[in-house]
């Protein structure tokens, strides 16, 4: 009976599609990210990862017989724009879900709109813990990225592992910074019983020297940085200007990789011992076959043909995996109903992605696909490419 029903459905679908093959609107996946401002490189990486996944899915006939399409809106890191973008996507019935960008503050401000409209929000980058632990039920926010709670613990662990005993936190005065503050403080207390030294800064600041000098006076031996590219670059430049013996090593959250950090810092980047949180690298991908396939599509679609040429590879990998997971969820939901898709997302299973293999990326209780087991540290080489850090510390500057 079930098989007869399936066949009937297939016939109906065939007739419907063959009668008006071009009438089936594409399934639209929205991308709301900073595409032009401080984290434009991160947004572009996300777009490329999503496009490759869509390309691959469309190559296979799309999802539910419908082509996938990516519609990009630029929020420039501005939450107000992000909210408006969500409103815009929500108004379009073809938009099944929205991919987010680098900025946690934007994502956090979008949450009410997301849940008011009931549109699945997939975060391939923004790491703020509250994005997922947002209190909304049902929770439409999913993330295949770093969770600050995990990242904070990981970075503290890495710092202590590298022999630093007095880490100082340099955090931006945003919800993302606060999210990391809680995570790192908890982790440091848990791992060493100490309370971290903390300095805050605002977006748009051009001088981090007071905070850095405060950390120096407090005998900090490593700085754990939570910042985007512009503010992170100001800190690197200041440190590079100090005598070598006064420079403090930096272990950074990956916010700096969202922008063109090597271009902003220039040669100063080489003078500072800097390692950065990563979840994926084409240089040590867990599934090299899939990684090579993605690199092939990157080369085909975006003329980026080597692992060294890929900018913000985590954004590419996370978006790529999220779109594939979304495709499966749509298929599982049997349509683009957002609520059904949301539910389906919690039930996707056995997905071998670029980042890793997921038995079940999301569950009703867990909307973070990744945990600390996927974390690693990377460093900028002389060409500005982020490479995996094999040892316990990045190369000496």
């Amino acid at each position, binding site marked *: 009976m079930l098989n007869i029903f399936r066949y009937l459905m297939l016939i109906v679908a065939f007739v419907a599609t063959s009668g008006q093959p071009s009438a089936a609107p594409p399934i639209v996946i929205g991308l709301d990210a900073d595409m032009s*401002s401080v984290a434009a490189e991160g947004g572009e990486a996300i777009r490329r990862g999503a496009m490759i996944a869509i390309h691959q899915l469309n190559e296979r006939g799309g999802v539910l017989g419908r082509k996938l399409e990516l519609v990009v809106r630029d929020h420039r890191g*501005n939450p*107000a724009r992000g909210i408006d973008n969500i409103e815009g996507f929500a108004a379009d019935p073809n938009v099944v879900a929205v991919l987010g960008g680098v*900025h946690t503050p934007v994502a956090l401000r979008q949450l009410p709109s997301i849940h008011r409209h009931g549109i699945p929000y997939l975060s391939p980058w923004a790491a703020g813990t509250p994005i997922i632990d947002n209190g909304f039920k049902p929770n439409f926010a999913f993330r295949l990225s770093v969770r600050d709670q995990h990242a904070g613990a990981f970075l503290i662990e890495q710092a202590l592992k590298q022999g630093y005993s007095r880490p100082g936190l340099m955090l931006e005065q945003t*919800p993302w910074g606060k999210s990391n503050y809680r995570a790192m403080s908890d982790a440091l207390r848990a791992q060493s019983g100490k309370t971290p030294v903390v300095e805050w800064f*605002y977006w*748009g600041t051009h001088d981090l020297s007071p905070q850095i000098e405060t950390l120096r006076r407090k005998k900090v031996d490593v700085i754990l940085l939570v910042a985007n590219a512009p503010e992170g670059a100001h800190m690197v430049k200041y440190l590079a200007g100090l005598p070598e013996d006064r420079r403090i090593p930096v272990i950074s959250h990956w916010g700096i990789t969202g922008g063109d950090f090597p271009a902003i810092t220039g040669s100063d980047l080489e003078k500072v011992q800097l390692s950065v949180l990563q979840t994926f690298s084409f240089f040590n991908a867990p599934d090299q076959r899939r990684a090579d396939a993605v690199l092939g599509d990157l080369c085909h679609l975006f003329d980026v043909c080597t692992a060294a040429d890929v900018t913000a590879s985590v954004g590419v990998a996370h978006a790529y995996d999220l779109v594939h997971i979304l495709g499966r969820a749509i298929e599982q939901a049997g349509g683009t109903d957002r609520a059904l898709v949301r539910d389906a997302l919690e039930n996707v299973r056995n997905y071998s992605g670029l980042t890793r293999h997921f038995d079940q990326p999301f569950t009703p209780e867990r909307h973070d696909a990744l945990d600390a087991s996927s974390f690693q540290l990377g460093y900028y080489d002389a060409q500005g490419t982020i490479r995996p850090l094999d040892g316990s510390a990045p190369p000496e500057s």
Partner: protein
Amino acid sequence: MIKSVTTSGLLSQVNLRVLPAATLILIVIWVTVSQVSDHVFQDEVTKKLAQQAESQANFARERLEVLATNIRGIAGNDLIINGLVDTGAETRYLTPFLRSIAIGGFSDIPIILADYRGRPIAGKHFYLWSQSDLNSWNDQVSQGKSVITLHDAGLVIGVPVHINKFVEGMLVVRFSPEELRTLLSPIGANGQVDLISANDTLDVQLPADGKEVPFQFELPLPESGNLKLVSTIYPEADSKASYLQWFMFVAFVLDLIALICGIFAAVFLVTRPLNCFITHLQRYQQNEDMAAFNDQTGPSEIRQLAFAFNRFVSLEKDILRERSEHADKLKSALDREKELNGLQRQFVSMVCHEFRTPLAVIDGNASRLLRRHQTLAPEALEKLFDKIRLSVRRLTDLMESVLSAARLESGQIKFDPVACNPAEIIEEVVANHREINAERKIDAELDQLPAEFSMDTKLMRQVISNLVSNAIKYSPTESMVRIVGSRTDDGHLAISVSDEGIGIPKAELDQLFERFFRASTSTGIPGTGIGLHMVKALVGLHDGYVDVTSEEGTGSTFSVYLPDRSAKLLAPTLQYEAVA
């Protein structure tokens, strides 16, 4: 009589003469300058008002620009930027931060941070503006431009807030109309600046007195699109003009005072030297001997006057002296002329008388001969003829004397000295007189004379003859006439003729050799007064001189001294030889 000058007198005179005219001139100058300056002042005031209004407008525009710059600076503050992205920032720090901001010296001014579409995020006094206003301003701000516009007669300045390079928000500040006026109007300026729509006209309230119309200057604000600044200046020209008039009146009074003081000073400075000068004049008037006026001190005019006066006095003294000398000479010449005229008249009278006597003798003897020539004895006839001949000789001598005197006066007598024996010359003359005056005793002692002496024999014969003739004429017949010739110690030839006659009064000795003079003792004795004059003149030609000693009633001695001319002639030769 020249009177002295007193300071008070001179002051009153000068003041009377100068002050009215000077005051009149000052008044004319005052009025003229007032009129001219009033026009000039008004022009200047107009120019200045225009400049002031323009400056005030520019100042207001600069203040607006500074204000907008300040607000843009606030918009660039990282707290504001962060406020756009930080969830809950508006409740935690953004609103307190905005409330703490004082702009343009005003605190608690309405300020709002809006998102990229003009929707308020944080701020205060939201009720003051509508979303449509915010949207309208945001349309312009989103293009990166600032908004300067009016809102409920207040000023609204909206500036973009950038994240990275993009406009992601808007900061809007509103100033009330009162705050706007305070912002735009310079402190202390006598005007105000209003910000109005470019199409509007500002109604300016005229002053109550209506004397001066406020001056306006409009300055469009291109950055605002449709606004303009209207700078209004309330002129104080009238009061300033009155100040000017007042200042000019004060200047007039001060000029007058300065003039009077100047007159006092000038009079004081002039009076002293002038009085001194007048004193000199008075002394000069009184013919007092006075020192030269001091022409080295005092005002230059007085010095020049004193110099001229001194020069005048000096010249006048010279003129008076010369005039006196000339008068003396003239008087002397006149006296001399009078005397000569008298002597001449006396001479003419005497000559007539002298001529008449021999002529009468000749006439009487001739008549006797005519009547009695047949009866007279030959001896008697001879006596008559002798008398006639004697009278003729006397007439001849008389005429010769007159002619000699005439020749002497006309310089026709030639001096022709020759060496001769003086004794022979004297003997010859004595012999003639003995022949004529046989009854007279004439003694001549001539042995002391040199054998040879240089003289004009003709002239010297006349000299000796005149002296001998006078001695005979003015002495009794029985008395002796003595002629002595000698040589003095200094080589002069001395010839003296003495008589025992009537003598000459001592008082008349000095005039004795003057022409036509005759001594008072010669009255009744025929004579011309020419003889002694000729003697002195002829002896003078010989470089000699005549001396006379006489005692009235006893006799006289006339001595002629002739220098040795041969010694004079030889001297140069001897000198030459000694030198050679």
